[in-house]
């Protein structure tokens, strides 16, 4: 094994390294706090690996540029925060229906609008899922440490390539700006997934034809495979259609490919959960407070554990239902007015008591905040 060298790295810097390791060779973006370091890092790192960095005129253009680059066969990403993420929504929908792999980092800060530029929040959870219109599947991943900023970014690219779907990397200002001592895994130890390309002769290529995975092979522009890309609902050849059977087939396939992959896509961490009587469900930086709170509660003889979804969407329903059946109460601390907790409540069939803890003052939820809530049930 290669010698591990430790570095003091910031979350945003680790996202850059993860992207480069995953094979990202195109970045288009527009600077915004607290995501700017990703663009800065990419502008330095991409030229070293023959990649391309473009500072765009805005986030609408950024999203358009990475879709174009990805259609040309290059793994692409952009990074932004709330205001820019809002601007990207239309083109994210385009990437969903045209099945263009790409990764969008949304480093959450306080909103709405320009909001609280330098403070953390987790208020885009629903926007990552439903920000763009239409019935679309999407994958959203959320790292909680600097090391995970690296590994989860690699996973974001892998899933994006495997399922031909935009993947949102959603974390908050704290994780993005936090520096930790990390040893990044060597390149050789990483699994890197590339999109499937057509093997048939160009004349035989049917660009959106279904198969067992529900993910058609994707040719790069310039490879000699001619096909049509549109935001309109299209037939298997990529041309607009409104024939009910063709429309239904496409929309259902887009969902099926993700549903079939749930076991592969969904990932969560169980922390002290084996004998837990009360569970805390938390993600991103708040998951760190939750872990600390669980440790402190156990020093007090209270059996508390933490479930931390890394995959925020598709919602980890099976895991959450199982937890709800096995504990008597669930505490859901979030830096928003209750976005993920609403999903948990949706699947709770009276199994456990659900307690929300919401902070929207631009400050991180502390372990003490969680312990105070815990007193209501334990």
């Amino acid at each position, binding site marked *: 094994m290669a010698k591990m060298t*430790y*570095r*003091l790295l910031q979350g945003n810097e680790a996202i850059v390294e993860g992207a480069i390791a995953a094979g990202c060779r195109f970045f288009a973006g527009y600077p915004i*706090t607290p995501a700017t370091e990703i663009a800065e890092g990419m502008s330095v790192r991409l030229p070293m690996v023959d990649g391309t960095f473009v500072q765009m005129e805005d986030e609408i253009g950024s999203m358009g540029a990475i879709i174009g680059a990805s259609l040309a066969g290059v793994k692409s990403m952009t990074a932004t925060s709330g205001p820019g993420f809002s601007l990207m929504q239309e083109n994210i929908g385009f990437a969903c229906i045209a099945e263009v792999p790409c990764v969008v980092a949304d480093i959450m800060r306080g909103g709405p609008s320009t909001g609280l*530029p*330098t*403070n953390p929040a987790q208020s885009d959870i629903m926007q990552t899922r439903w920000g763009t219109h239409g019935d679309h599947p999407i994958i959203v991943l959320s790292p909680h440490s600097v090391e995970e900023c690296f590994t989860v970014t690699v996973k974001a690219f892998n899933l994006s390539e495997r399922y031909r779907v935009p993947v949102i990397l959603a974390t908050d200002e*704290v994780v993005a*700006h*936090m*520096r*930790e*001592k990390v040893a990044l895994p060597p390149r050789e130890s990483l699994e890197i997934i590339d999109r499937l390309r057509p093997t048939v002769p160009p004349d035989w290529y049917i660009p959106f034809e279904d198969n067992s995975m529900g993910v058609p092979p994707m040719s790069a522009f310039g490879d000699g495979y001619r096909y049509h890309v549109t935001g309109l609902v299209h037939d298997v050849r990529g041309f607009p259609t409104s024939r009910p059977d063709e429309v239904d087939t496409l929309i259902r396939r887009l969902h099926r490919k993700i549903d079939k992959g749930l076991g592969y896509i969904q990932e969560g961490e169980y922390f002290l959960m084996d004998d837990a009587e009360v569970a805390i469900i938390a993600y991103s*930086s708040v998951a*760190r*407070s939750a*872990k*600390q709170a669980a*440790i402190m509660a156990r020093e007090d003889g209270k059996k508390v554990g933490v479930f931390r979804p890394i995959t925020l969407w598709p919602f980890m329903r099976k895991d959450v239902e199982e937890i709800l059946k096995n504990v008597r109460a669930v505490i859901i601390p979030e830096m928003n007015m209750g976005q993920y907790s609403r999903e948990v409540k949706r699947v709770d069939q009276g199994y456990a008591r659900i307690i929300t803890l919401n902070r929207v003052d631009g400050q*991180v939820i*502390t*372990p*003490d905040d969680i312990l105070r809530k815990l007193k209501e049930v334990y």
Partner: protein
Amino acid sequence: MRYEARLSGSGGQGLILIGIILAEAVGIYDGKNVVQTQSYGPEARGGASKSEVIISDETIYYPKATHLDLLLCMNQKSCDEYYLDLKKDGILIVDSSLVHQVPTNKAYQIPFTRLAKEELGKAFVANIIAIGAIAEISKIVKESSLTEAVLKRVPPWSADLNKKALKIGMEEGKKAEAFIPSKG
């Protein structure tokens, strides 16, 4: 043992930089676990700015500082705001050229900014003088580790200037000790 340090003042004083330097010195060169976070206003200069470093032999979960073992205040506002977060035996270090109302006589009062201007002719190395003093007073970081970390993070042309600033900081830290009332 969890050790929590907060370095506070206003934007532009280089508090985030010395937070990074301290974290790198303790984490990479001294081999402990560290997490460094920061919090600042939208202004490029002025406004509130702070940088926090958590040091521990164990895994660090919660990344922010709440019960401070060490507090550096480079302006009056931060001293007023954060003094109460300090633990009973916590160390308070203030830039006495900018903090005129010190809440306790058990504070290390060193005029970092004045020293930077008068001794080195550059106000911007006040932060490096401060981190030198912190090392001397708190003993949380080895001198050699700190020097190495500083030199890694500052532009090469300023290496000598920063080395001098560190040295001044350490000497001043030693001197300030004499004015601290004995513990008890």
